């Protein structure tokens, strides 16, 4: 399969000024991550709040400049691109945001919202705008009568459908879905997830699916990346990551996911303490202060991703 997106040793440090010690410090939001996404494939990105998932998405979208590392789209580096080249690239990478209530401009009608990307990237001639808008609305399960309405006239699920229509309007190769269902109720969540899967099959789009919910990730992803404090702690195909997780953090995450079976014994692993500050990431393995299996080496040496199986890697000294 063709590789659509490749992320190589990507780092993003935010500079902060510590008023107490009068020193410059760095928030290591993303600290050297690498992964790739193939054509028509979904990569699930999972982790706690503050683990660097959204920052990774913004780096790929080029909304943030990476501190180091590189991102390749179909083998072409996104580093040091001119504005003109970047505009061309933007056509291929689109985003669906978490909050459908805030992601649509409240002063624009749905028609204007959908026409904007069409006109920027000259997808169709302006005589075909109306037909294209109707086609897009039908694709995401909305009526063409809705095109002259404003976003506030729609429900959350409908707004997210409009957000998806906007993303697919430019016929992208790759869409970043930044927690697209976490603001929606469960019944609407499944509709949106099914819609995303249908569109993927139809248009051969690749997704980077950022989410908190492990069940959602399991449902939509082909491969999964588990992030902790800006680092990848486990990476592999969905089945092996969820069924044979190797990293203690992934084990804790998987065990804490609720299973609707009252007879099943609750064996969830409760992690001790809070996620450390990304300004002061612990030395050695970043997870060692919360890991119940930590050994001496975990405190001094940072583990790198090691192969568990052919399609499965984890960053732990215990493997």
């Amino acid at each position, binding site marked *: 399969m063709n590789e659509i997106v490749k992320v190589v040793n990507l780092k993003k440090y935010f500079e902060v000024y510590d008023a107490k010690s009068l020193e410059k410090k760095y928030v290591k939001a993303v600290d050297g991550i690498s992964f790739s996404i193939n054509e028509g494939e979904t990569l699930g990105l999972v982790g706690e709040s503050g683990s660097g998932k959204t920052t990774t998405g913004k780096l790929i979208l080029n*909304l943030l400049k990476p501190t180091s590392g590189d991102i390749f789209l179909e083998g072409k580096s996104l580093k040091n691109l001119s504005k003109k080249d970047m505009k061309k690239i933007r056509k291929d990478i*689109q985003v669906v*945001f978490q909050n459908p209530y805030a*992601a*649509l401009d409240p002063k624009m009608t749905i028609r204007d919202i959908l026409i*904007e990307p069409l006109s920027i990237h000259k997808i169709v001639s302006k005589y075909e705008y109306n037909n294209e808008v109707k086609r897009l609305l039908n694709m995401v399960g909305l009526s063409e009568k809705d095109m002259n309405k404003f976003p506030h006239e729609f429900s959350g699920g409908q707004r997210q459908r409009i957000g998806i229509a906007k993303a697919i309007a430019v016929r992208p190769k790759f869409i970043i879905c930044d927690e697209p269902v976490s603001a929606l109720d469960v019944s609407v969540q499944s509709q949106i997830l099914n819609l995303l899967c249908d569109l993927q099959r139809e248009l051969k789009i690749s997704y980077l699916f950022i989410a908190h919910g492990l069940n959602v990730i399991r449902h939509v992803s082909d491969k999964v990346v588990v992030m902790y404090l800006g680092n990848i702690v486990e990476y592999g195909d969905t089945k092996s990551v969820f069924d044979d997780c190797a990293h203690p953090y992934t084990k804790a995450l998987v065990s804490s996911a609720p299973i609707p079976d009252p007879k099943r014994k609750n064996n969830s692993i409760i992690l001790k303490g809070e996620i450390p500050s990304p300004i002061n990431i612990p030395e050695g393995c970043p997870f060692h202060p919360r890991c119940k299996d930590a050994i001496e080496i975990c405190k001094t040496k940072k583990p790198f991703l090691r192969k568990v199986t052919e399609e499965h890697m984890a960053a732990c000294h215990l493997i």
Partner: protein
Amino acid sequence: MIGQKRVLRNIFSKVLVLFAFTYISIFIFSIPQGYSWEIIDGRFVSTYPLYMIIKRCNNTFISLLEFNLGYNMKGKALVEILFEAFKKTALLLLSSIVLAFVLGLLKGISDSSRGNKNYASFKVLTSVMPISMPDVLIAAMMQSFAIWLIQRDIHIFKVAGSGTLAHSFLPIIALSILPAFYIARITSLAVNDCYKKPYVITALGKGCSSMRILWNHVMRNAIKSIVEGLPNITSIIISNTLIVEYMFSYPGLTTSLMNHITMGDRRSSAIIIVFIGSFYFILNGLFHCISKLMNISYRREAI
């Protein structure tokens, strides 16, 4: 229906306030010069009977309602005086409001960080400093600048007086500076707020140019907050008119008011004050209406 009732109630309350303001203003100016009172043998004794003051006040109030403004002490028709002065003040006020709005918007946009926080504090400082300057100083600086230009044979501005359009340039600029920086602060905050919104990030992701984002997405949404701040500048701008017209010897409404107070023509002074007050109410109401119209879709949603 509920909306219409609310609008009518709002208009009625505003008209009531205007009437109260008119009556109180006329009452104050109906008190004759040198009026005093004292208590003699436990009795309240005034130099002029109160019922006479009220009668005078009522007469002026009724004549004002009948649009019969009468004559001033010099025998000139007050309608003519007011009309002439009003034309000049209206030109001054409306031009300065437009100038303040344009300058304020541009300065506000340049002050806003728009994702880039370089020099943000400096930009804020350049907007806050003029707001804290007294109007007298701004007018004096304008005049000094005009004199400096004239000394170098550059006759763009007239230092004071009236007669030509050039005479109104400096007063318009002097009057617009304070509200312009006020609008700049509101604009800057509103623009910064909009830049954090996900729909702007989405627009960036779509490949919109920075100008398109600014005008199509940010300003369209920020303008609501900016227009909401406009009623506040009405009071700033009208109170400053008195200083600016006086310093530039500009024959507007407030100069006319000052002249009539100096003459001791209390009836005419009261009528001019009522006229200025009405102008303030109308301008303020107009800004409120624009602000409400801008907000109409949100109100519909809330209902």
